[in-house]
């Protein structure tokens, strides 16, 4: 069981968190024409890096959506900050 740092709550057990996706997904402006390839990239393409990753996680108990930097191989957690950049 891993310990993840919620930027608001502090360290908590991994069971309180939900993986929300990789950081950096930007929703295309669907008010304008979006081509199928760009939309597919937004929906499905993953960097899926082995090693250092930056991801968005949801802390289920306090609903904080935040950015976590961790290592997908060693499971070391480096840092976290709120999605809006508020530090711990």
């Amino acid at each position, binding site marked *: *069981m891993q310990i993840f740092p*919620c930027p*608001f*709550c*502090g*360290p*908590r*057990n991994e*069971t*309180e968190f939900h993986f929300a996706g990789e950081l950096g997904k930007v929703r295309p402006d669907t008010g304008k024409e979006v081509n199928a390839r760009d939309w597919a990239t937004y929906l499905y393409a993953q960097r899926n890096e082995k090693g250092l990753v930056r991801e968005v996680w949801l802390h*289920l*108990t*306090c*609903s*904080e959506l935040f950015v976590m930097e961790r290592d997908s191989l060693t499971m070391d957690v480096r840092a976290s900050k*709120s999605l809006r950049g*508020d530090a711990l």
Partner: protein
Amino acid sequence: MRDDSKKWDAPGAPTTLEMSDGLTITPVQLARQTLLSGVDVLGRTQHPIAAWSGVVTAQTYALSLRRDRVLLVNGPALADGWHGDIAQAVSDVSDCYSVFDIRGDRAFSVLKRGAELRLDVPSKSVARLLFGLGVFLYRFEATDTFRVHVFRGQAETFFKSLKFAFPSL
């Protein structure tokens, strides 16, 4: 669909449960619980704020739940809805959460059956998972008394989880 009425224990009326070693679980009736959400609602509340693992001693207090939300306990009556003047969303949640006090020397040991808890690791929020249920957990009035708010529909499950955890001590 089958009739499973018998498989599920009928919910009992909430009563105080006394276990060995002076451990008790007591249902608590609060005058009011109010959910307040808004920017800097934590900074703007005039009531003492409960966080983990401090001990709340006031009768009216605000539970720090998240960056922009508190649960006001025993506060004044406020109208439900969006309060544009103070830019806060307000909801009466008195019937949303059932509240229990778990008291005794070994209360913390019981709770550790349900979550990875440490008194020496503070948290700004009292919201956490306990026995797999979303709860608000903090210490109330004494260092050996833990108060839990749990969704009403899950109070039965919570009570049962505690009962199973007791004999394991």
